[in-house]
């Protein structure tokens, strides 16, 4: 948990960002089609804060992370880090290469995120060299050993190859590599999803500890709501390229307002057999991002959708302090302060039903 509430200027600001991919048609001479993976999202990450982007596959959370760090190109919108422009047209200076490197990334697959031909110490040393830090060989070695120590490895691990490490250990080396250039923001792209539960706990605790010690911010991308609750200060729920709800972690889990968030929470299997039978599954499947539903992106599966929902896309508006929801029907139908889990959603596709 962060020690300070983000009252200062935000570290990272994303404004109306979209990322579009061109997809070749399945027919031989067909037109190329556009896949809008991220559709005009806006959010902020404060200093020393963990902001989680959560959603299922195809929601655009990973693409968001990759666009911010520059692995993909944004087709619309802008983002700034400490007020310096990362991409987009908005005013202000452009971030220099050095400033860009204040954002680093940790990846999901520990088995292919490290070059198998390089020793671990060399990989970290290379990260230093890339960042352009001015230091002698000996100084760089000291820095590498120090960061290895911070993630729990003694100096004897410097000369080992990645294949000599387990998945969890490799992920710690990945964290070391992100840390070594002293970033302000680390984007964690499903960083613990490929790990066993007990190793996952180790890594999450390490991330929390590092944040406590050095005030790093995290943009934590995950599909696992339990993990998100544990690590995030604020959460943005994504569906089909849009943020449909955003709130503090506590508020989101205690008082989810968007029908998708509620369905998502309802679907998570909780490790408590006493809560059986109180969950209802959301019907249908995620529509293809090549052809999203008109109006609200969730309208095709929403249990409380009305005709307005297919006509006009709702905006992400604040319903209370720090809580934004993109839904036409919120405010009039969402009860406050109720437990999402025992609130059963009507399991049908009929529009116009009022929830219980």
């Amino acid at each position, binding site marked *: *948990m962060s020690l300070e509430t983000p009252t200062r200027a935000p570290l990272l600001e994303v404004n109306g960002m979209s990322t579009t991919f061109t997809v070749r048609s399945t027919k031989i001479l067909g037109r190329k089609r556009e896949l809008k993976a991220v559709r005009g999202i806006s959010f902020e990450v404060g200093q020393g804060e963990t902001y989680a982007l959560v959603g299922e596959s195809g929601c655009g959370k990973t693409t968001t992370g990759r666009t911010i760090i520059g692995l993909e190109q944004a087709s619309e919108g802008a983002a700034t880090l400490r007020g310096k422009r990362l991409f987009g047209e908005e005013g202000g200076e452009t971030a220099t290469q050095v400033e860009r490197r204040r954002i680093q990334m940790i990846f999901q697959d520990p088995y292919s995120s490290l070059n198998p031909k390089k020793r671990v110490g060399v990989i970290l040393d290379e990260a230093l060299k890339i960042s352009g830090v001015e230091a002698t060989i000996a100084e760089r070695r000291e820095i590498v050993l120090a960061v290895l120590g911070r993630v729990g490895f003694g100096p004897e691990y410097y000369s080992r190859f990645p294949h000599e490490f387990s998945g969890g250990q490799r992920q710690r080396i990945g964290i070391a590599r992100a840390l070594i250039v002293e970033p302000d923001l680390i984007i964690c792209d499903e960083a613990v999803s490929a790990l066993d*539960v007990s190793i996952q706990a180790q890594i999450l605790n390490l991330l929390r500890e590092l944040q406590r010690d050095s005030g790093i911010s995290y943009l934590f991308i995950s599909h*696992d709501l*339990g993990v998100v609750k544990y690590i995030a200060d604020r959460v943005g729920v994504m569906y089909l390229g849009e943020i449909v709800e955003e709130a503090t972690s506590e508020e989101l889990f205690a008082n989810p307002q968007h029908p998708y968030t509620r369905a998502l929470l309802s*679907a998570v299997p909780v*490790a408590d057999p006493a809560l059986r039978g109180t969950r209802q599954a959301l019907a249908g499947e995620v529509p293809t991002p090549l052809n999203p539903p008109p109006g609200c992106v969730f309208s095709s599966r929403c249990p409380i959708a009305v005709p307005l929902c297919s006509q006009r896309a709702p905006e992400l508006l604040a319903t209370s302090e720090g809580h934004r929801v993109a839904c036409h029907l919120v405010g009039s139908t969402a009860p406050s302060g109720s437990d999402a889990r025992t609130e059963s959603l009507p399991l049908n596709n009929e529009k116009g039903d009022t929830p219980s």
Partner: protein
Amino acid sequence: MSESPLLDVVGLTTRFATERGEVTAVDDVSFSIGSGEIVGLVGESGCGKSVTASSIMRLLDERYTSYGGEVVLGGTDLLALPERRMRKERGRSVSMVFQDPMTALNPVYTIENQLIEAIRAHRTISRREASAIALDLLEQVGIPDARNRMRAYPHQLSGGMRQRVVIAMALSSQPRLLIADEPTTALDVTIQAQILELMLALRAEYDTGVVLITHDLGVVAQTCDRVLVMYLGQIIEDAPVGELFRQPYHPYTIGLLGATPSVDADSADELQVIPGRVPSLHDVPVGCRFAARCAFATQQCLDDPPPLEDVDGVHKVRCWNYRTVIASQEVTHVA
């Protein structure tokens, strides 16, 4: 279980020959399942749960694998059958659903064809009759517009749909036992909820016994009647699901529960980390396999491997000190 169990696994031991010597991936595993019972086999990577499933179906390459013990399904020991007989049983009396729906279906045949093939493998009927059965199965597993979807190819279906088709194929012969190896791990959470609900409904309909293998304790809590926890090839706890979560006896189970982040938990609580790492199968410790990482370990634990002890007829645990463990947990629960 008043009647004789549907599946009785007695002392199952599976060994592999590897370059670095022989490893025992499953070591003297015993459990039983009744008709209509869903038993969860849970553990982390390398604990042997998938190998146990593959051993029951005898899917492993027998040039490099040796099986020991008995796997008795409806009176027949599957491990003792000649391969020809075993082939007849696979898909008929015992079926399997695998983890990855993306590669579980043959991309060059339509759904209809694959289902028909599965149905006609165990019944001599015409293609038309099989097709009718296939349609019925697809509707049962909740595929919308099944008549048209049947003619689709796997790549035209989403992951959730493909997994439903796989389940339909597995159930096509109305097997007495269904083994599901991480069936929802590769699926989104909302789709996972749908598939688990489907499996519960089908279990009620067909009274099939189910072995559900997973690493996700939440899935276990929501679906299973009984839970077996595995560690390094052994079962270390065997209990009804309510009991396991309310009062786990084994320190490893407690550790797993403590390490699982939950949407219900208070995020200020630190996740419990189990110290150390799972030892390699090449280097199995003498004595209790978990002792090196266990807060309750005594000298006896290091020297003597504990047996799987039946505590009260329904709850079994493989631990010398479980009474101490229970007592310490009660203290924390009271607090």
